[in-house]
């Protein structure tokens, strides 16, 4: 059935839109992008900031375009002098209660409040007065919370509750004293925060930021090569997104330039987290096949996403026994750098400094987990940089990124299959695992390569695949609120799967909490962004000769030379980990 069409005028221009369209969307059809701060298409309507107000004939007060649906004969004014003044004044009111430190702020040039203030013409301060001041909460290993910069748009609150199903953040106090934070305004570190960093991704200002690791990386890079051998590894998702920060079209793969840039920055060795991804698949496929053979602890839940692991420990500790014990690709790579690679090079692992470039802020937390360290406490991963931090370092160094020649990863931990590249998109780990598992289960060398049914950015994807003589039931979820549905269905017995991929961030790592802020004409969390970025990864995969993780010769060599065989004792010691319930107080 086609929807009823509604006729209205916007600034005198007649337009016809389907019933149920909001004024904001109707205006967009006319090419008018109304200002907005609290509005986000993927989150519930807040209507708090009021900057999208419009004038509607017949009303004394102004209506918010984000929430108001059109009606027949509606007459909307989007830019009358009254409306322009109201919007300007609203943004000034926000600025008046915001630190005046734009020049030294992390979000300078990338701040939605700054952008709106400029656009709406706040050129002087009329109403300034007292300003809120709160201490910055730096307790978390991943996320810094700075309420002094908060404009109370509530996007972080909604993303945390509605997309991630965590609900760690909420407003406290009221009126001028309203502040966003975890329950009882406890430290982020003591809260149920799962470090995913989606609050950072959706925050229009710098009220949430990742913990900065750039300074320690500069320090390490400045040390003589023989004192600190600085090794860097790059997650699959970075190569699909870093280009955006250098004005390349979204979805431009930049693997080669990225490698060169890292060498220019002074990294001694440039490895690929993809190698760890391939290794993860080999270990995980073995683990999976063992469980299938024994018919126990199914479904196997993936464990690459540290936000998900944190969520598991905090909210679903009873599901720990289903979760793969494989370390994440980052930790596998780091561990091998400080064992296998160090041994090969004849270096003391403590003289190696490992930096991981990740799309993720939870990786900073993961790197700091005590189990991911050498027996003397030296962490396998010394620093984790987000895509944003790396981009800034490249810019700060003065590297003309787009003019860089392509480089190649160092060996041996730089060789990878296409299966590893697609780890960065939701469904990618599952697809990579299936490529290997299919071969192992059937014993046929040429199993299927592309599993279309689990590609795409849908929140929950399910499929039953015929592999050999077995039906393998799988599920893929991204965004932890979706994971909740899957996990609850497993717990209740409503659903039975063999293998489940869970990624904390909506869209997977390409939409991770550490990825570049969207440009002015895009929203954070935009599914279109996710699709475009994912396409880049699938493109890289398609062009590779190696498509299956277990076919990676470097992996084969690693087992032959060092680990023995998948799931061997040494493999277990180095490549597997354990989890523990971290049930927050008051939850259960």
């Amino acid at each position, binding site marked *: 059935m086609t929807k009823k069409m509604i006729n209205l005028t916007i600034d005198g221009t007649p337009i016809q839109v389907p019933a149920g369209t909001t004024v904001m969307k109707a205006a967009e059809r006319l090419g008018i992008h109304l200002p907005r701060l609290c509005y986000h298409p993927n989150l519930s*309507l*807040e*209507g*708090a*900031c*009021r*900057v999208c*107000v419009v004038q509607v004939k017949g009303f*004394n*007060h*102004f209506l*918010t375009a984000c*929430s*108001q*649906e059109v009606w027949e004969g509606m007459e909307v004014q989007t830019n009358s002098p*009254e409306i322009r*003044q*109201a919007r300007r*004044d*609203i943004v000034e*009111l*926000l600025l*008046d*209660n915001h630190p005046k430190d734009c020049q030294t702020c992390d979000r300078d040039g990338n701040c939605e409040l700054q952008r709106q203030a400029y656009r709406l013409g706040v050129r002087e301060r*009329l*109403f300034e*007065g*007292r300003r809120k001041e709160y201490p910055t909460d730096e307790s978390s290993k991943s996320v810094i919370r700075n309420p002094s910069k908060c*404009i*109370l748009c*509530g996007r972080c609150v909604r993303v945390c509750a509605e997309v991630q199903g965590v609900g760690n953040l*909420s*407003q406290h*106090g*009221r*009126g*001028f*004293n*309203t502040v966003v934070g975890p329950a009882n305004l406890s430290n982020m570190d003591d809260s149920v925060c799962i470090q995913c960093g989606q609050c950072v991704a959706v925050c229009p200002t710098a009220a949430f930021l990742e913990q900065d690791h750039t300074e320690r990386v500069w320090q390490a890079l400045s040390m003589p090569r023989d004192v600190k051998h600085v090794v860097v590894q790059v997650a699959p998702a970075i190569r699909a997104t870093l280009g955006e920060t250098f004005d390349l079209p979204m979805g431009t793969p930049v693997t080669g330039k990225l490698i060169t840039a890292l060498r220019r920055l002074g990294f001694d060795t440039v490895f690929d987290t993809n190698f760890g991804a391939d290794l993860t698949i080999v270990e995980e496929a073995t683990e999976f096949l063992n469980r299938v053979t024994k018919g126990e602890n199914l479904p196997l839940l993936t464990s690459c996403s540290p936000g998900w692991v944190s969520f598991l420990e905090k909210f679903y500790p009873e599901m720990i026994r289903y979760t793969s014990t494989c370390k994440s690709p980052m930790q596998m790579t780091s561990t091998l750098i400080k064992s296998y690679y160090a041994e090969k090079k004849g270096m003391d692992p403590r003289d190696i400094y490992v930096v991981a470039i990740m799309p993720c802020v939870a990786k900073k937390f993961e790197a700091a987990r005590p189990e991911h360290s050498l027996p003397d406490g030296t962490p396998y991963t010394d620093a984790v940089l987000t895509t944003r931090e790396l981009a800034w370092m490249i810019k700060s160094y003065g590297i003309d990124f787009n003019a860089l020649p392509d480089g190649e990863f160092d060996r041996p931990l730089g060789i990878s299959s296409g299966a590893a590249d697609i780890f960065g998109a939701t469904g990618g780990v599952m697809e990579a695992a299936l490529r290997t598992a299919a071969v192992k289960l059937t014993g046929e060398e040429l199993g299927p390569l592309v599993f279309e049914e689990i590609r795409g950015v849908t929140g929950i994807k399910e499929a039953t695949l015929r592999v050999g003589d077995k039906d393998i039931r799988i599920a893929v979820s991204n965004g932890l609120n979706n994971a909740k549905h899957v996990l609850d269905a497993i717990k209740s017995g409503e659903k039975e799967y063999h293998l489940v991929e869970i990624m904390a961030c909506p869209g997977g790592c390409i939409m991770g909490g550490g990825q570049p802020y969207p440009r002015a004409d895009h929203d954070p969390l935009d599914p279109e962004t996710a699709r475009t970025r994912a396409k880049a990864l699938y493109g890289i995969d398609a062009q590779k000769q190696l498509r299956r993780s277990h076919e990676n010769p470097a992996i084969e060599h690693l087992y032959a030379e060092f680990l023995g065989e998948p799931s061997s004792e040494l493999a277990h010691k180095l490549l597997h980990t354990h989890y523990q319930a971290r049930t927050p107080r008051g939850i259960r």
Partner: protein
Amino acid sequence: MPNPVTDFFEALTDRTRTRLAERGDAQKTIIQIGSATCEHAAGSQDVLEEFTKHIQASGRDDVIVHKTGCTGRCSKEPIVGISIPGRPPVKYERVNREIVHKIFTQHIQKGAPLPEHALDNSLDHQYAFEFVFCQGLRCNHLGGLKESFEQLLRQHKIPEDQVRVSTHGCFGTCSEESVGQAAFVLVRPSKVVYRVKDQTDLELILREHIRGGRIVEPLRVTRKPISQDFFDLYADVSFFSAQNRIAMRNSGIVNPESLEEYISLGGFKALATALSKGDPEWVINEVLKARLRGRGGGGFLTGQKWKLATQNEEKTRYIICNGDEGDPGAFMDRGMLESDPFSVMEGMIIGAYAIGACKGFYYIRAEYPLAIKRIQNAIDLCRAAGLLGKSVMGSGWDFDMEIRLGAGAFVCGEETALIRSIEGERGQPKVRPPFPTTRGLWGKPTCINNVETFANITAIINYGGDWFAQVGTEESGGTKVFALAGKVKHTGLVEVPLGTPLRDVVFGIGGGVQDDKALKAIQTGGPAGGFIPASMDTLPVDFGPLAKVGSIMGSGGMIVLSEEDCMVDISKFYLSFTQEESCGKCTPCREGTTRMLEIMERITSGKAVMEDLDKLERLARLCQQTSLCGLGRAAPNPILSSLKHFRDEYTEHIVDKVCRAKKCVALVRYEVSPDLCIGCTVCARNCPTEAISGNRKEVHVIDQNRCVKCGQCYEVCRFDAVERK
């Protein structure tokens, strides 16, 4: 055809009658004591205890104590009523243990009332009969009958101490008769209402009733007028007789904890009528005909709201009673919940039936423990009596309710915030539309009505929507309860027909301005209301006219301001309330009220410049036009209306640095007059900052740099030598 609801109701009333007859109160002397939060605070529990002791000591079993709610005569509490069979009831004011002893020994034991303690001097003129003529707005052209009657009494030389003639607002009887055909007369203490058409009727009353002591049956109104019980008891007190009691008809009469007493006063008849008809649409139509507007402040037509809820396809629907009364100085809802909980409850059940709700919630602020207790008691009793729960009154329709407590946020009176609060979320308004009638509590269609709105429903069903509409104006039917306070002689709860001129409330009922100062303004609508200057005191109280002059009806606060009040200071006070209570969700309210308050602080401390006024007005308009909820949109009302009507006071503060009412401390200066000071040193000794110097018997001097303007010297000087400038 037998109707199960009618049968149920008959059985219920029979049971009640029998039980009350067993109590045999009709033949006893009744000591009526107000029992509500305000009465308790004034000491009514002590009074109750003292009377109980006296009764026990006297050994009299024909004297009983009757606990009632509150009549709304705040400044005279505790109020005690003494009803001895056959005599007009007497009310005493500000009773304490000592007065209890006097009342008991002299009035109850010896039959000699104590005029010196009578409420509002109501015993100054004693009489055998009081004839109270109805003076309702709609039929007062028959007021001539009252004069004829007085003339008749004079002709027949009836002494003034035998018969008193007075008037009262409206009994609410006119539905039986076509308007203007007859006048109604209540005879106290005979508990009779006559319908009087002409001189012949008056003569008949004189002959039969006054001379013969017999009730004139042919003239008697058989159907009990709505407020008869109230005026039987209170018509001799001018504070009450100028009012019109519909929503508060039982307040101060009924024991709020007794379902039986409520039923004996006509309770649950309306619900029985509604359920026995089996037609929710009929109920909605009556409420529509009544033109009842939401008493919480919005003024939306209640019938319309109910209708909207029924138009939704979703059949799980909720009804909520909004008892989150948060305006400073407002206590209408508390008064009704504490004094007549069953009436609110019956109205709510009828509303639930009309919209097809399966569950109701009372949202009452936690600061009202007695109201909560009484509503819980009412719920329990109603459930036990089959008035709630499975098959209400045998109708086959299931409905139940429960109480949810508000945690003290003003904004939770806003309906979407209230819903969030019940859901267990942070109490913050949500964007509307969708309105709660479309998507409310847990996403289901929900009607939220105010306590007073529900308190009117039974009257509408019992007496008809048309009748209700006649009381009030063309736009809005019925009465409105106001909490009259401020610089007025008589404070308390006042119920008047909508459309009553403000003046009549302040001067007629309130007795005028305290200390006979000049009236400056009347503030209506609570902290988000506006000021109406004295020059507009003939303005009819109704939603439209109030909005037109920049104020609101709100939930019914009415504060009288005199020449001693500073409009800037009062505006600042209201703004500080809304600033403090802003939920913090939307920018204009959260940030705007703070900036406005900063400007107001600058103005009252003499630090503002004229440019600040423009900024203030600009922010006020912004807040009004762009805030998310009604509270934010109304928050600047005090500022905008005082700027409109009292701009010169702002200018004085800014330009001349003068506060003419001497309320803005920073602008006040204390000086010692050399002519009047005798050098007694009292001021110097009382000054907390040692700002006053001077030797004994010498003129003292105040050091302006040290003075903190506390006014202590001004208060203690016995020679008026300290001047406040």
